[in-house]
């Protein structure tokens, strides 16, 4: 599903974010990317939805070399990739239901489809009763659930999560992990960058460790360290 081949990424010609990294992720896998800040976890994720371009090496997503993907096709790549972030990136002037609907609306889904899909996904993430609240009326965990709902409403092949529990307390984080696990069980490949030792150790999934841009460990059913 995902393959990095000797990928090197250098920011502004000097900051080495990834160095000769190679990694392959199968369909339906759940992968943790761990490592200290600045080790290249975010870059790894940003390369996958072509927010960044590799300087050397090749990146494959769903069998396609996305380095060779013309820019007008990038939006269609991203429709197959859901994204979740530490800071949620919800639109503050839209309600929960509007935030999720927005993601479908802007890729051209008709209103009739949106009307069915959005309540269903909000049901899945457990926010049916807060559909008409604004993000600032929700707790951090609830906001992250909205963001996951938005990322998953289009049933993407891959879900990328960059420190999704970074702003949440341990209990709330566990709830989010349960949700991501459920999504993974539907067959969606999940790649999650995290600092959260507790979660990684508890979940016992594949762990890819990065250090100063290099993959130093790749272990199935691994722990944080």
């Amino acid at each position, binding site marked *: 599903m995902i393959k990095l081949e000797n990928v090197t990424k250098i920011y502004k010609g000097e900051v080495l974010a990834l160095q000769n990294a190679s990694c392959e992720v199968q369909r339906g896998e759940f992968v943790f990317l761990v490592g200290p800040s600045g080790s290249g976890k975010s870059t790894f994720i940003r390369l996958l*939805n072509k927010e960044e371009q590799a300087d050397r090496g090749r990146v494959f997503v769903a069998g396609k070399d996305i380095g060779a993907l013309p820019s*007008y096709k990038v*939006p*269609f*790549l*991203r*429709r*197959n*990739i859901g*994204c979740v972030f530490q800071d949620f*990136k919800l*639109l*503050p002037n839209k309600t929960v239901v509007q935030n999720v609907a*927005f*993601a479908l*609306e*802007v*890729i*051209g889904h008709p*209103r009739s489809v949106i009307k069915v899909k959005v309540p269903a996904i909000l049901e899945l993430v457990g926010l049916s009763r807060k559909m008409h609240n604004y993000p600032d009326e929700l707790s951090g965990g609830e906001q992250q659930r909205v963001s996951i709902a*938005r*990322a998953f409403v*289009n049933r993407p092949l891959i879900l990328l999560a960059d420190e999704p529990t970074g702003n949440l307390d341990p209990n709330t984080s566990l709830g989010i992990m349960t949700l991501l696990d459920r999504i993974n069980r539907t067959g969606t490949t999940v790649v999650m960058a995290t600092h959260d030792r507790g979660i990684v150790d508890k979940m016992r999934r594949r762990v890819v460790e990065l250090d100063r841009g290099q993959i130093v460990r790749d272990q199935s059913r691994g722990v944080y360290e």
Partner: protein
Amino acid sequence: MDYVVRETASNFRRNVTLTLATIITVTISLTLLGAALLFRDAVDNATVRWKDGVEFIVFMDPDISVELEADLRRQLEESREVVDFIYIDKDEAYAEVQELLGDSPELVDVITAERLPASFRVKPTDTLPERVDQLAEVFRTQPGVARVVTASETIRAIEDLSRGLSQRVIIIAIVLLVAAAVLIWNTIRMALFSRRQDIEVMKLVGATNWFIRVPFMMEGFIQGLVGGLIAMPLIWLTNNYLSIINDDVSLELLRGFMVDPARVWSLGFQMVGLGALVGTVGSGVAIRRFLNR
């Protein structure tokens, strides 16, 4: 489609003052441009009319002797190249000056009939400007002739004057139009900035660049379009003013100083189109830079 309408409307609400300033600038620049082009057309038309009845005027020395004047008259009568001529004596010339300068009596007071030259107004057979010039040249060198003025000379003078004038107006209009484009660019940039979160999310979930672009380009397009639509009636008013010039008897020289209504319409539509184009391009450039960041 629904989305585009909603987004465009909300962008307008967000930036009412800037939008108004932009529309006013577009309107002023397009009105000036339209008026200048109209004026040029009018001058062209006036000149065309003149060419039909080309004549030249032989002004004689104020103190010309009776013999010399009679001699000139005979030459005109005998020339096969002259269809007809009219003799304007000093008193008639004075009456004409009085009429032309009716608005400024102090000037009329200075002029006396004695000081004005008598003249022959000549209608030549051949109205080709070159032939007229040749014929005029024959009289220019005659004794007792002060000056020979061909109609084409007068017209050329008017043309030069008006072209200089309308050229300047056109330059001002173009500068204003560029200013309008910059204003539109800036308005759209601000709209983009205030919606940067939405755009970030749109890019994230895979909205195409065109989908993101269209509401903003619509906004620029509408600003230009509305500016153009307001300019259209203003251009009509300018045309009415031209008609007033045309109807003014004292400006007989400018007879035919009019523009066909169809031409005014098409010019109006061209200005509307130009406004819409400027708006679309201005916003398009703003978005291009924003999306490529």
